[in-house]
């Protein structure tokens, strides 16, 4: 038994999941999808040192003392990214006290920030990681069925990026995007019709711009009256200055056009979320260089604004030149579906490489951590997964998972439950197992 295996075995026996410290590791004999300029390496080595990728290639010298992980011809990919998820800010969906993604109120709407709710001990995190996920874009939302909350909530709040690696501080960056719901749901939150929600958004951006130019005078009351609270105005400054993208939940082709128009007129960056009818305006989205986060399984006319939903949305957007990101499920519990969703997009026309990009390097770039993760390139943080086959296949399993150079335990509360109840009937209560 290798030292690491012994440590892991001990961790499993004691029920304490602790990762091994960062070390020098060579993952050899692997089919490597770098998702970087080196492309695919049929048989190569990934060298990890001090938490970073030291070398990736077919001919990598293995330093003395490095621990060698023989991938035995398995597939190595960058760690996957769960884009647009409640992972780390949700525990049990129906228990509101355990959820920190839906919290915007009328005077703290743009100012609502998921970063305060991130729970490094969430039981969801190991479950997601065992699906190959090593980074996530944690997004707030406004749930439609929670009508005990104030109605007038224009923004759901600010998103954050996290890593799923060792340590208590998972936050990479806060304020990576400002979430807003438009279309039917957005209208439902503000006024009741699109004419209200789009106008309210434009007015808010206008106030934000004005505030950004007159911040110093605000405290003396020498500015025009604002409808937004100071906290919301402050939160909108990076948006109106083009530093923080609006993450816009939008569905209907006509609404997507309106968002593209708004982005042009108000000079803001946008990322489209959902965009089921995106394929119908794909060339316009591509021309505007607006990335799209899609769930490739959305193919039902669930609402009148998604009548054009199709399993080929991802493929058609990609074909038109749009940068796509594939999400798993917004629900953090199902974040592990990221790889299956990418596989289903492939089954409906998306090239395999584009699908893998859509769950690695694309989200990393769009959400501002492309220089740190998302591909296997020397100098980047060492997030990688060793798979026993095609990572997009449900029958494929991860063998080893590294985050920031640390090999993470292949364990979760769910796996412990499975082991506890594998042998029945028990000769003593399972609680003693």
């Amino acid at each position: 038994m290798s030292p690491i295996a012994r440590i892991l075995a001990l961790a499993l026996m004691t029920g304490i999941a602790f990762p091994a410290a960062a070390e020098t590791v060579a993952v050899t004999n692997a089919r490597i999808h770098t998702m970087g300029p080196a492309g695919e390496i049929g048989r190569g080595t990934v060298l990890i040192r001090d938490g970073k990728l030291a070398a990736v290639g077919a001919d990598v010298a293995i330093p003395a003392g490095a621990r060698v992980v023989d991938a035995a011809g398995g597939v190595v990919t960058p760690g996957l990214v769960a884009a647009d998820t409640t992972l780390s800010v949700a525990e049990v969906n129906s228990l509101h006290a355990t959820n920190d993604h839906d919290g915007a109120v009328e005077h703290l709407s743009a100012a609502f920030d998921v970063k305060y709710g991130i729970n490094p001990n969430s039981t969801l995190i190991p479950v997601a990681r065992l699906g190959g996920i090593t980074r996530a874009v944690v997004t707030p939302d406004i749930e439609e069925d929670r009508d005990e909350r104030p109605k007038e909530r224009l923004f759901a709040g600010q998103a954050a990026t996290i890593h799923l690696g060792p340590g208590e501080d998972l936050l990479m960056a806060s304020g990576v995007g400002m979430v807003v719901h438009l279309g039917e749901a957005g209208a439902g939150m503000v006024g009741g019709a699109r004419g209200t929600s789009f106008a309210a958004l434009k007015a808010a951006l206008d106030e934000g711009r004005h505030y950004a130019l007159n911040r110093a005078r605000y405290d003396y009351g020498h500015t025009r009256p604002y409808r937004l609270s100071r906290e919301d105005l402050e939160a909108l400054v990076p948006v109106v200055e083009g530093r923080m993208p609006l993450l816009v939940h939008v569905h209907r082709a006509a609404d997507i056009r309106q968002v593209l128009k708004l982005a042009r007129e108000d000079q803001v960056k946008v990322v489209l979320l959902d965009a089921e009818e995106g394929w119908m305006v794909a060339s316009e989205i591509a021309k505007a260089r607006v990335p799209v986060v899609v769930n490739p399984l959305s193919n039902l006319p669930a609402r009148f604004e998604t009548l054009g939903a199709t399993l080929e949305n991802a493929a058609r957007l990609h074909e038109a030149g749009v940068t796509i990101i594939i999400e798993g499920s917004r629900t953090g519990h199902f974040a592990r579906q990221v790889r299956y969703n990418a596989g289903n997009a492939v089954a409906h026309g998306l090239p395999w490489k584009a699908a893998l990009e859509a769950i690695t390097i694309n989200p990393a770039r769009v959400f501002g951590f492309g220089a740190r993760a998302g591909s296997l390139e020397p100098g980047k943080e060492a997030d990688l997964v060793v798979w026993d086959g095609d990572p997009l296949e449900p029958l494929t399993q991860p063998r080893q998972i590294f985050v920031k150079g640390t090999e993470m335990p292949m364990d979760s509360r769910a796996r412990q439950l499975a082991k506890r109840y594998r042998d029945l009937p028990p000769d003593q209560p399972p609680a003693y197992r």
Partner: protein
Amino acid sequence: MGAASPYGESLHLMRQFASAAPWLLSAALLAGCASTDGGKGEAVKGGGDPASVRLAAKGLDPAASSESFPSTYRPMPSVTTAIVGARLLTGTGEEIEDGTIVLEGGRITAVGRGVPVPAGATVIEARGKWVTPGLIDAHSHLGVYASPSVAAHSDGNEMTDPNTANVWAEHSVWPQDPGFTRALAGGVTSLQVLPGSANLFGGRTVVLKNVPARTMQDMKFPGAPQGLKMACGENPKRLYGGKGRSPATRMGNVAGYRKAWIDAADYQRKWDEWRKKYAAATDDKKPDPPKRDLALDTLAGVLRGEILVQNHCYRADEMAMMLDVAREFGYRITMFHHASEAYKIADVLAREDICVATWAEWWGFKMEAFDGIEENPALVHAKGGCTVIHSDDETIIQRLNQEAATAMAAGNRLGLNITRADAIKWVTANPAKAIGVLDKTGTLEAGKMADVVLWSADPFSVYAVAEKVFIDGAVAYDRADRRFQPQTDFELGQPGKESRR
């Protein structure tokens, strides 16, 4: 129905009276039936069912329930077809390489290696492809929660009383739900549509063949039994507790079930007694029948073993509680649905021969689902239990094969050695058994309905798509041919097409 049940006895008695039938005549005359045979009575014995009691109108007779809203399903036109060279997963535990399957007259007529192809058959060369039975979803709300999911389509939960055993899901089914055609493209040929889980007794379920149709009756699976949706746990107590009425707790839930079964037994007894008295009375002294009660009818149907109990229940301890309630009142639970904790009592469920319908992936959406694990379906299977992968969802129903793949992978990760031949049963034969149609469909066996899927690849691969779906031998869906890609009225003329092909 176990022989130990007191209500099995009452069924037996009822049948005796029905065949003796001296009272049938006057009932028939009362109904205005044209019987002129002067008291022999044979002419009015209804529907081949000796238990049937003819009253003034069929709707007044509990025993005639199964004749109400009858199926008008007719198989679509088909030609004799042979699929040759594919790998067959039969649903009976076999995997056959380079196999042939023959579909003739709506039935499967031959399955195996080297099976002769009948003269004149349409031959589909399927080397490298796979064939499975049509997939069956034992838990769907298609039609009752139709797309678009607007309030006007919210027809699955009669949330007005904890006991709505009187409602039937089939009365809510909108056959134009686009979800049906999406599920068809995913290889689903039959499904059980259930009422929701807001109530202790949610109402009757209906089994449908997944064919495009003008009416629910045109989809209704001929000869399939109905089910009774029951629900444990959080949903009923949350909903009614929130309204300040019972049940507000799990103990309130159980009290609610018990009260209802006591009422049902009482109701059953009244009808039995009436039949006895009716049989004994002279023509001029026939007693009036009891008043029919739709809710108690459903429960009595369960006690007689005619309606299958489909029990929504997440927690292991609650499933054990429901087993005792069933024992107390002499009925059988056919399947626990969702059953996130079935793995904790897999040995018990296998012994009791109760199927478990669950997911691989869903967990954590509420407290009672917090211990849901990917290994649940495989652990139930490994103990000798009847595992069913269900959807409860209009998206998952389109990929039941992938959900089964995830569940199989989780089991094999745990060293349970589950094969494709095993796991395909979770979405074919086992759900067929659990909804009472295994004698008609669910496997690739001669004599069964020709409900068959031709897959482009291994159905446990994410890249596999259903190329052709046969229902009763007819091509219901063809991925390569627009003429066999049904479109609902709702979607006609709307933007967006599923495929450019």
